[in-house]
């Protein structure tokens, strides 16, 4: 299913999220199962199914990584369930170092400071990668789409790091 079509939005990575939000609400109202309480079984079922599709679509388009994956899937590059290992040694070494920094937070003299330092690094790196991703998806050539897929893989590592960092923050607060 083409989620962009469902919301009648152009299939681009740069998306007007406010517009997406209001179209989501409008579609939800339109297909809300309450509106089909007196309808035939078939129509009621259709409204339930359509509501589920609308929710999935909104969830996917709202988040940049899922949106990029959906866009790439529409272009014939399915990467969301791939199990291939990532092997860029320079990138992975950097990931190792960031993981080590995360490990050292809890034993550092000033954990808040250490969290801030990592947080800034992660934010900065994410920003750079997202910008490159937007450019690659905009170019939309076979080569640039492959490049975009590689950038999505890299970004997934950074989102995972962000998640780990948030867990550490929570643990320190408790």
């Amino acid at each position, binding site marked *: 299913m083409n989620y962009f079509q469902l919301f009648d939005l152009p299939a681009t990575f740069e998306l007007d999220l406010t517009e997406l939000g209001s179209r989501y609400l409008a579609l939800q109202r339109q297909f809300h199962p309450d509106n089909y309480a007196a309808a035939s079984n078939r129509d009621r079922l259709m409204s339930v199914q359509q509501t589920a599709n609308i929710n999935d679509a909104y969830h996917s388009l709202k988040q940049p990584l899922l949106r990029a994956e959906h866009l790439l899937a529409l272009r014939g590059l399915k990467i969301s*369930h*791939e*199990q291939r*290992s*990532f*092997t860029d*040694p320079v*990138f*992975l*070494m950097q*990931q*190792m170092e960031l*993981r080590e920094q995360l490990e050292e937070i809890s034993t550092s003299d000033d954990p808040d400071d250490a969290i801030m330092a990592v947080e800034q690094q992660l934010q900065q790196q994410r920003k750079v990668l997202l910008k490159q991703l937007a450019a690659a998806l905009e170019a939309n050539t076979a080569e640039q789409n492959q490049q975009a897929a590689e950038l*999505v*893989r*890299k970004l*997934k*590592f950074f*989102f*995972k*790091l962000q*998640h*780990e960092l948030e867990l550490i923050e929570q643990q320190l607060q408790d």
Partner: protein
Amino acid sequence: MAYSNKVIDHYENPRNVGSFAKDDPSIATGMVGAPACGDVMKLQIKVNEQGIIEDAKFKTYGCGSAIASSSLVTEWVKGKSLDEAQQIKNTDIAHELALPPVKIHCSILAEDAIKAAIADYKQKRGG
């Protein structure tokens, strides 16, 4: 999802955790990652003049299955020739640790890590 006893054992008592000095010419390093879960695995081997893996170490950031898979592989490769180590299959790892289907990718990661380390060694020697 319950972990098997073997996974828990390797997770709680991981074998061969750590790093070798990278500039030692007998040391080769394999780095791999899994974008889907963000796991990162580093596996190092120490190879003697006869091409036998004398020692191995790993460092893995990931779930229990990823740690157990890399720990098991470092045990398995010790004493093996590079060719023998190259033959290690993810299915053997998954079978030994009784990994559930959703964790098979952890064993794939460990297989790819040892293959990457062997490739790094060959490149170091050849280049």
